[in-house]
C-alpha cells in the first residue's frame, strides 16, 4: 500500500491542474503533482509515485537504488507496474 515507485517527469501537461506525464520503466502515464505544488518541478526530475501522485522529489541516484530494490520484490513490483499502466485519471 505504501509502495512508492520512482518515475521521471517527461513533461508538465497541465500546470494549473498540477498534472504531469511521468515515465516508469518505459510506461508513460499522467499523474498528479499537486502534492509538490510548492516545489520547482520540471522535465527530467525524478519523483516517488504513490497511487497516481508524486509524493516527494528524489535524486537520480535514489531513483536508481529504489528501482533496483523494487525489481527484487518480483511480483509486488510487477503488480505495481500493471496498476500504474492501468491508470486513466481526470
Amino acid at each position, binding site marked *: 500500500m505504501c509502495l512508492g515507485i520512482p518515475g521521471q517527469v517527461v513533461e508538465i501537461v497541465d500546470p494549473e491542474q498540477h498534472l504531469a506525464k511521468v515515465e516508469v520503466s518505459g510506461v508513460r502515464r499522467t499523474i498528479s503533482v499537486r502534492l509538490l505544488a510548492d516545489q520547482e518541478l520540471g522535465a527530467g526530475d525524478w519523483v516517488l509515485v504513490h497511487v497516481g501522485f508524486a509524493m516527494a522529489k528524489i535524486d537520480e541516484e535514489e531513483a536508481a537504488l529504489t528501482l533496483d530494490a523494487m525489481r527484487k520484490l518480483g511480483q509486488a513490483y510487477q503488480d505495481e507496474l500493471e496498476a500504474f499502466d*492501468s491508470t486513466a*485519471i481526470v
Partner: protein
Amino acid sequence: MRFVDEFRDPAAARALVAAIAELAGSDHFKFMEVCGGHTHTIYRHGIEHLLPENVELVHGPGCPVCVIPMGRVDDALWLAEQPDVIFTTFGDMMRVPGSRGSLLEAKARGADVRFVYSPLDALRIAVDNPGKQVVFFAVGFETTAPSTAVTLVRARDLGVRNFSVFCNHVTIVPPIKAILESPDLRLSGFLGPGHVSTVVGTRPYEFVPKVYGKPLVVAGFEPLDILAAVAMLLRQIREGRCEVENQYARVVREEGNPQALRLMAETFALRPHFEWRGLGFISQSALRLAPAFAEFDAEQRFDMPGVRVADPKACQCGEVLKGVIKPWECKVFGTACTPETPIGTCMVSPEGACAAYYNYGRMHREAAQLVGRGGGR
C-alpha cells in the same frame, strides 16, 4: 550468511551486521518496525536471521489493510451491493474477508466492484458514469491520505455530484502511542515508517523519546536501510542518547510535505475514536471528511448499517499487529489461514506480517534452522 548474497552490496551488509553484533554485545534488544513495507523487506531478505539472536525485530501495526476492522469491510460490502453503485477500491482490499465474504466475492455475485490504481481513477469513473453513484474505499495511513485529499478537492472543483468517499484513513502516531502504553511489550526502540514520514516529517515522533524514553529511527525500505537503522538505534542506546533520527534523509525531510499536510487539514477532520482490528478503539486515530466536504462523504450519503463486528475468534491478527506474537505462533497460521483462504487481514496484504512470512520468511527460517540459526524465534 548465505542471505547476504542477494543484497546489492553484500560487503556493506556484512559490515553493518558486524557493527550491530558489536554494539549489541550480549544484551537483548527488541525493536519494532512500525511499517508493513519494512516487514515485507525483512522477511523477503531474511534480515531477522542476519541479525544476532539477541537483536529481535517485532512487527507493528503499520499495514493499512490489516488494521481495518471487519465491520468496516461489511459496510464496504453493503455499499458495493447497493443498486446503481460502482464501488472502487485498491486491489489490496479486494480479498479482505468481511463477515459475509470479500469484495471479490461480492463482485462474483454481480456487484460492480472495480479495482483502481489511484483515487483519481475512481473520480474518472464517476465522470464517465453520471447515472451511477461511484464510491471510493479510502484506506491507508498518511502516505495515502493526501491523494484522497487532492481527489476531493478535484471532485469539488469539477462539481462531480455522483462521487463519494468511504473514508477509513488512519494516522500513525496513535497506534504507536497505544503500543507504548500496552503492558505486553518491552521494546528497546522503533524503526519509524519511511513513506508516511515523507508526508508527516520526523517531528510527530518526538514524543517517543521525550515521553516514553525510546529511540526512533526513520528508515528506508532497502535491506541495507533496515540494517543501518538498527545500528543507529543501538548506537543511540550505547552512547546514552535517546532521540528521533532520520536514516532515510535522502527522501524524508524533517518538516515532511507541508503541501500534503495542508490539503489533508483542509479536507479531513479527526474522528473522536476509531476501531482498529485487534487493537480495539483508539481515540483520535482516524480521519473522516471535513464538514466542508460533507457532500462527498459516503457515510452521510448512504444510510450505512455501521455495525461493529467482532474479529473471528481463531484469528490472532491483533497480537500479530501489536508484535506480541510472530505470525507462525498464531493457531491458524498456514493451516486454516493462508493467502488463498485468509481468515485475518495480516494474511491478505503483501505488507501483512503473516502474508510476508508465509511467502518468504518460512524459507529463510527453515534454511536458518538447517544451518543452526534462529530456530527458536
